[in-house]
């Protein structure tokens, strides 16, 4: 029962059943710096991750 987070090509495996927020914290990703997208739809932090979910994380920081 796992789900996968993908950020800039790097994959993070997390337990299904937890919220996106908890999954981000567990993976040491700052929640404020990404947006979660599942099947092309944006999801918010309290969304429960399902088994075999693949969540694309869009990095929000840019600039130099």
């Amino acid at each position, binding site marked *: 029962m796992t789900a996968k987070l993908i950020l800039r090509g790097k994959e993070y495996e997390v337990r299904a059943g937890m919220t996106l927020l908890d999954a981000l914290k567990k993976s040491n990703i700052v929640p404020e710096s990404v947006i979660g997208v599942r099947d092309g739809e944006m999801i918010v932090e309290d969304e429960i991750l399902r088994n075999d979910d693949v969540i694309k994380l869009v990095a929000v920081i840019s*600039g*130099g």
Partner: protein
Amino acid sequence: MKCKKCGEKASVNMRQHRMALCKEHYLEWIPEQTERFIKKYEMFTHRDKILVAVSGGKDSLSLWDILVKLGYQADGMYIGLGIDGRRSPTGGGIDYSSESHRLTQHFADARGLTLHVVDVEREYGQSIPMLAEKTHRGYGKPCSVCGLVKRHEMNRIARDLGYNVLATGHNLDDEAAVLFGNTLAWESMFLLRQGPVLPEADGLARKVKPLCRFYEREMTAYALLSDIEYIYEECPFAEGSTSIYYKELLNQLETTRPGAKLTFYLRFLEARTNGLFREQDEVVQNLHPCNKCGQPTTAPDLCSFCRMIEKVNQTDAQESQ
């Protein structure tokens, strides 16, 4: 989580406002708020001719999209910097400038908008990486040269083409990161000049930042939900930059203290308005037009940009002899 306006499933949650919105209401809310900030800070009216500095990134393309939706006279300007990630010090990457130009042009063409394009290398014989290599300002890290060139070219094009307002896509995270850096060093002159509006001066258009109260996350959400195709890759030279580091630090703070970034910026604006920082009269009085381009400068004779170009061209001429 439900949309505050209709109760449908939310797409975006803004913890600093304690508000979540669905796609439809979010895409209404952002332009409404932008209009509110434009009026609050007296940025411009529907009579003004606005030039939007577009880079191909999410913020500037979203800004252009919003201003056009709100019915403003807004044309775009793209500055080709000649940055190619495949030739950067770290290697790899993409042809950054070509790709960002392609996306910007695509955005303009799809909406029938006017886009002015300036290619720095074609105009001055030197790309940004070339200028950085040849001057003491750059040396492998061209961000300072890039900023100088972009400021100069934005001012030049706005003046030459008769635009009285220059709009940039700076978001709150950009502003908070700059503010954080300037506060760490107590740069009072920079702090004094930072704000949503920089009034017009002799030869310079008014500069405005209509997105300055939106988090970077909110602007990313707007671009994604609007199906705006923007350049996702980072500028190859931005890797490890101080501003990105400050943004990361501030986002860590925001995660545990929702609203911290917004408060930091808004309280600063309030303090500035209340006179926390004072203008140093002598600096303002010393502004005069550059002998070559006519833009205001405090430097004697030539402005920093013209001095840099002249120096590089002289060096090139000597080396070719």
